[in-house]
């Protein structure tokens, strides 16, 4: 089964090429069949890989499968092969990427049905390209091809955010996402250069795999530098402070894109990268502290910023950033399996929430402003229940998927705090709890505002979306409900599966008593419920009146701490001014000035010389005679010497 792994790349690539070249000629039904079919086939391969690897490991045969396809670079002693690596981490990641990706593809058939045929085919070819690049990122066995996939998903996200390219705001958002992603690519590239210098190889087996892990000496400068550069890459891709600014704007893309790229898969690439290279982080304590601060700050920042957003998708965007912060917090204490677990459940419930938001937007003919919605509960029942389940999972309410994974992260942090007696980790745990409270508050504020109360504006023909859109929602609804049971503290099948590939937090309890963990769970559950209760008190019981509010705290949060204008003024504008200055001094004055100056001199010379061309034949004759005299005179003088 594992020999079929290359097909994981071949299928989506084939879909991209076929739809990209011939999509405009094909009828809509063929386009959607190819677009979804290739992802379905890839999903089957991923599923086969998952179980084949699991049974091979339990039979004690192997822990990973590395397939070298061919040598890509041979330069002196440096050899970089193109190969695929199937281990427990990449098997799970591929299952999430292709599985959730498949559901979102199916959903897109309905959501994009009003597009023109050409745009419809373009959309599916870009989506397939994205899945291909993401698979390359996950399956690569060298950092070089990780980088190729890394940059490739950035490209695909640029194309998809700017899908409606006639909207100036979509184009601006696509450019912003691309520029910030390239900052991350650059960080990854520098880390790769450092690794080539240190190890003279880029294979995972020569750099980060545990049996070679001793090569990273703890606390050394190079190790710390590599770890910090990897963090830059992860922050840009996973929208963590301070490189998060592209994610809320990226909501300009079609909603399935937001679900696929900005909730389920691409933004988790940073989490994957940190989990994959956890050996480096274990040997770089400084980078681990930065990781914890970055994760905690992003989780809290995004949760508070989501509190007063009015765009339904922006709330979800900030929520994504906040949940990614949780994952990085978990990774900072070494609980990689908990982080990957949260990555998976988050893919389920956040994709569900985005699909449901897309359902609302679709039903209201493109309206995204929550202030105009309300009372949609009876008219959009499936969407409503999707939101309720997704919201409960997001807020971490038992027994939904998010509860188990969020608890795994929080209890791992608490356990580490107790083991190390570290005040910082207790603070991190508290930040996690506060964020959990805020999460319940903002997501149920959204649900109560949109679905309860009375409609705030008139919309005609509000109806539930069609089967291609509801079917994936129902599947995800089930997964978001029961998906957490594979990783409960009582029977943690998820960590057991992932154990050979990453750090697993030691027997989940980290040495603390079972009672402590239960208490921690109850506290986390209580704050989540408190958040929901506050949302009910504030927005649920009576319709909220969205009057203008001049409270400075409200304004600060509603504008996401004014970071966008701040970055614009502090970074973007100076860079633009530098560019304009260089344009004036070097481009206009030096280069253009130089070439135009030569042209001016030649022009002036020719204008003066032209005077000699009088048109009088006798003048010319005189000149010839004079010349002849000069030549003959010169001869005479020369001869007489």
């Amino acid at each position, binding site marked *: 089964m594992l020999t079929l792994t290359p097909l994981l790349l071949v299928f989506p690539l084939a879909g991209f090429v076929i739809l990209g070249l011939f999509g405009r000629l094909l009828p809509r039904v063929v386009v959607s069949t190819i677009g979804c079919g290739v992802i379905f086939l890839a999903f089957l391969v991923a599923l086969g890989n998952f179980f084949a690897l699991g049974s091979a490991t339990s039979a004690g045969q192997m822990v990973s499968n590395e397939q070298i396809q061919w040598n890509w670079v041979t330069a002196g002693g440096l050899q970089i092969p193109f190969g695929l690596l199937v281990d427990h981490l990449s098997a799970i990641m591929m299952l999430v990427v292709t599985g959730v990706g498949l559901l979102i593809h199916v959903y897109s058939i309905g959501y994009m049905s009003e597009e023109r045929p050409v745009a419809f085919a373009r959309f599916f070819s870009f989506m397939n390209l994205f899945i291909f690049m993401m698979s390359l990122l996950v399956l690569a066995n060298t950092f070089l091809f990780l980088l190729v996939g890394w940059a490739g998903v950035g490209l695909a996200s640029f194309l998809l955010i700017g899908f409606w390219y006639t909207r100036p705001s979509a184009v601006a958002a696509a450019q912003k996402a691309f520029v910030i992603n390239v900052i991350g690519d650059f960080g990854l590239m520098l880390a790769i250069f450092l690794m080539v210098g240190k190890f003279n190889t880029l294979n995972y087996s020569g750099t980060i795999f545990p049996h070679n892990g001793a090569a990273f000496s703890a606390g050394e400068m190079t190790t710390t530098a590599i770890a910090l550069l990897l963090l830059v890459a992860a922050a840009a891709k996973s929208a963590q402070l301070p490189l998060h600014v592209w994610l809320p704007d990226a909501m300009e893309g079609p909603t399935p894109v937001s679900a696929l790229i900005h909730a389920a898969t691409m933004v988790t690439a940073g989490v994957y990268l940190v989990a994959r290279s956890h050996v480096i982080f274990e040997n770089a304590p400084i980078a681990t502290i930065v990781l914890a601060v970055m994760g905690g700050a992003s989780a809290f920042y995004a949760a508070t910023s989501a509190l007063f957003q009015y765009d339904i998708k922006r709330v979800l965007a900030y929520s994504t950033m906040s949940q990614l912060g949780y994952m990085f917090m978990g990774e900072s204490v070494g609980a990689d399996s908990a982080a990957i677990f949260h990555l998976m459940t988050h893919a389920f419930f956040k994709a569900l929430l985005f699909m449901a938001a897309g359902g609302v937007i679709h039903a209201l003919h493109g309206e995204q402003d929550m202030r105009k919605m309300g009372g949609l509960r009876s008219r959009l029942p499936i969407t409503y229940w999707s939101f309720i389940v997704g919201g409960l999972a997001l807020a971490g309410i038992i027994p939904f998927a998010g509860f188990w994974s969020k608890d795994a992260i929080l209890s791992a942090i608490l356990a580490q705090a107790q083991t190390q007696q570290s005040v910082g980790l207790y603070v991190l745990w508290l930040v996690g709890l506060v964020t959990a409270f805020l999460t319940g508050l903002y997501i149920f504020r959204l649900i109560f505002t949109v679905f309860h109360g009375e409609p705030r504006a008139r919309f005609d023909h509000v109806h539930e979306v069609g089967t291609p859109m509801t079917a994936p929602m129902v599947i995800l609804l089930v997964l978001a409900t029961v998906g957490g049971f594979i990783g409960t503290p009582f029977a943690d099948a998820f960590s057991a599966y992932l154990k050979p590939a990453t750090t697993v937090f030691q027997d989940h309890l980290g040495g603390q008593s079972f009672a402590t963990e239960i208490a921690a769970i109850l506290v986390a559950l209580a704050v989540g419920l408190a958040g929901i209760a506050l949302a009910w008190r504030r927005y649920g019981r009576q319709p909220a009146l969205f009057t203008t509010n001049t409270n400075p705290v409200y304004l600060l949060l509603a504008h996401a701490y004014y970071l966008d204008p701040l970055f614009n003024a502090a970074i973007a504008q100076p860079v633009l001014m530098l560019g304009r200055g260089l344009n004036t001094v070097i481009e206009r004055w030096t280069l253009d000035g130089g070439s135009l100056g030569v042209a001016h001199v030649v022009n002036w010379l020719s204008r003066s010389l032209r005077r000699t*061309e009088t*048109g*009088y034949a*006798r003048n010319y004759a005189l000149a010839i*005679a004079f010349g002849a005299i000069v030549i003959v005179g010169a001869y005479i003088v020369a001869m007489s010497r």
Partner: protein
Amino acid sequence: MPVPANALLFVSAMLFTIGVVGVLVRRNPLVIFMSIELMLNAVNLSFMTFANALHSVDGWIFVFLVLSVAAAEVVVGLAIIVSVFRTRQEIDVDDFNTMKG
């Protein structure tokens, strides 16, 4: 009694100078043409003088060449002059200055 070579060369030089001055000072194209012919024949005379003095046939051959070129040149030049006269009704070379830069 053979004429001395120096005398012949002197005559040649005089004829050539008269031709040059004629080209430069006259404004009637026909006269300019005649002056040019004068210059060409002055050169022919010096060719013949040197050919005789050096007992070489090269000078004679050059003279034939110059004569034929001169004949052709006169044909073309006269045709131009006639056609210019037909269009402009005058033949002052100083009025033909439309080709100035």
